Each structure stands twice: as C-alpha cells, then as structure tokens.
C-alpha cells in the first residue's frame, strides 16, 4: 500500500488500515471454499481411480464411510459501523481552524525571523564600522554605542561587530559574562 502511495508509512491511519485488512480477510472465506471444493473433486477422482485398480473391495468402502458431503455455512454477521454525526464533523472543523491559526502564527514568526536576512547585511556592517570610526578613538564601549537603540537595532549592531571582528577590522573583549564589550579598532583596519 505504501509502494502504491495509498498510505504514508510515517502517518498510518490505523482505522483505515484495519478496515482494509478486514476486507482482505473476507477473501479468505472464498479461498477456503475453493480449497474445500477442490479437495472434494480430488477425492472423487481418487475413488474412481481406486475402483478401476481394486474393483469393489473393502478399502474403497472404508474411504466412502467418511462423509464429505457437507457445506460449511458461514453465518452472516452484520458488521456494525457507527455513523458520523454532525457534532463530530463540527469538532473536526474546529480542530482544523485551530491548526490553521497555529500555522498562521508560525508563518508570521518565521517572516519576522527572516527580516534581518532580507536586509542588506553588508550595508549595515559598513554603517556600523563608519560609526565606530567616527568616535575618533581606538577603544569604544559597546554599551555606550548601543544606548538608546531598540532591541533589534542592538542585535544588528552586535552582529555587525562580530562580522567586523571576524574580518579583523576590530577586536572585541569582554572580561566577564554580561559585562560591557570593549570594541578595539585595529591599526591597519582603522
């Protein structure tokens, strides 16, 4: 079923699968009957052959003592199914709406996360670098530079500083965690 693309192996609907399995089992009743009828035919053929070889001797009678003339009656069992109610349909619709709401929030969140990537990061780095140079001294306090900026601007400033440090334009030092970051302009860079 997975090969035919009827089921997703990672998301199997047990009810659906069980239903299909039960339907498949129903075929076994037919197969069983076919085997029974085939065996009866084989027995009849064997009897004819035995009669031809042995004549009307006792062995044949012994086999005939076994009564095979019966039919297996499969009683009709009504499979009961519960029918879906309107309440169940409404409940599922509510669940869908809930999932869709969650998805929308996620999309908005992802878009928000994408914002810095959409901006021209290089331009921002250059802008930060120019600003640092504008101070006219080698050592600058990060806290004093970002003072007055909002959260995302601070973050962008911080990321730009990391980029500049990576490019060896500046050096960054921090004595202790959460302490101020010292930004030192490199000689050749500055």
């Amino acid at each position, binding site marked *: 079923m997975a090969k035919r693309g009827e089921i997703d192996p990672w998301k199997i*609907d047990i009810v659906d699968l069980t239903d299909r399995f039960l339907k498949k089992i129903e075929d076994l009743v037919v197969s069983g009957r076919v085997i029974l009828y085939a065996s009866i035919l084989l027995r009849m053929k064997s009897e004819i052959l035995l009669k031809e070889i042995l004549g009307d001797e006792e062995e044949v009678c012994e086999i005939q003592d076994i009564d095979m003339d019966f039919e297996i009656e499969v009683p009709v069992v*009504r499979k009961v*199914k519960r*029918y879906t*109610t309107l309440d*169940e349909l*409404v409940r599922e*619709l*509510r669940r*869908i709406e809930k999932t869709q709401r969650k998805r929308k929030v996620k999309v908005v969140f992802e878009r928000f996360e994408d914002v810095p990537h959409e901006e021209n990061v290089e331009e921002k780095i250059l802008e930060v670098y120019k600003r640092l140079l504008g101070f006219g001294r080698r050592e600058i306090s990060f806290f004093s530079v970002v003072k007055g900026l909002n959260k995302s601007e601070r973050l962008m400033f911080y990321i730009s500083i990391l980029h500049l440090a990576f490019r060896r334009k500046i050096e960054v030092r921090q004595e202790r965690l959460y302490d101020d970051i010292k930004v030192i302009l490199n000689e050749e860079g500055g």
Partner: protein
Amino acid sequence: MKREVEAILFSSSEPVSIEEIAKKLKVNVGEVDRVVDEIVRDYESRDTAIEVVRLGDRVLMRVKLEYQYLVSGERDLDRSTLRTLGVIAMNQPIELSKLAKIRGNRCYEHVRRLEKLGLIRSEKKGRTKVLTVTEAFLRYFGLNVDDVEKVGEILRSKVEGR
C-alpha cells in the same frame, strides 16, 4: 422481493447501490427503486431505532442518528476523510486543486470515497473539478434545510458556537 432487499441492506454496513441490489436479485433497477421507497416508508412508519436512508443512488440501513452514541463499532468515516468533507462543506463550491492545497494529496482518495458515498459531487471546470455537498449530505447528517448552499453558513455558525 421486499424481504430480499431488506436482507441485503441489513447485511451491509456500507451504503448499497440500487444497481448492486438489482444485479444481485437479477431484477431491473426500477423495481428495486420502488421496493426501496416502500422499505423507507415502512421504517418511517415504525416506532424503531433503525432507519433506511437514501444517499443519492445508494441506500443505507442504520441506527437512527439520535441513537448513534449507543453504537460502539468503528466509525464509517475516518478522521482524515471527515476533515476533508468538513472543508468541502464549509467552503463549497471549492476547486479540487484548492482543496489539495488545504488538505494535501491524500484528499484525492477522500474525494473518491465521499463521491462513492454520495455525500459530495464534482463538476468539471477547466482542468480542475469543483466540489459541492449533496442532498444526501443533508440526510446523512440529519440537517433540516432545503438548500445545500446553506450548509457552509450552518457549519460556520456551529463552529463559532453561535
């Protein structure tokens, strides 16, 4: 023949098509159709928990909706198919391509089953199909409205708890 048709309906947990019954009994479709009408009326007049409902060209014998809570068998529509039906009912008429965007590729299988059950119908529109619910949908869920177009509105108010 009435008893034979009743026996067929009783022994099936799925809706049975008139054609299937006619084939089984080796009679013509019109005759079965007439007998089914008779059985439907017969059950309506009886004080019983069982009903016989027509779902398009199919007939279903089932426990009446108000007693469904007492039935402990498996549900006829799995959750996934039911959700697809809900989306169709709320947004009808809806294009199959749009439904696939909402419900994913498995919706094609659901649509086939729902069409077979007579709960939805599809009409070709260009390269895609447009899906709507049927009168059988109303009977199936026991909705007391005369117009299938009102289904979306009714469901919306129920979902919003109005």
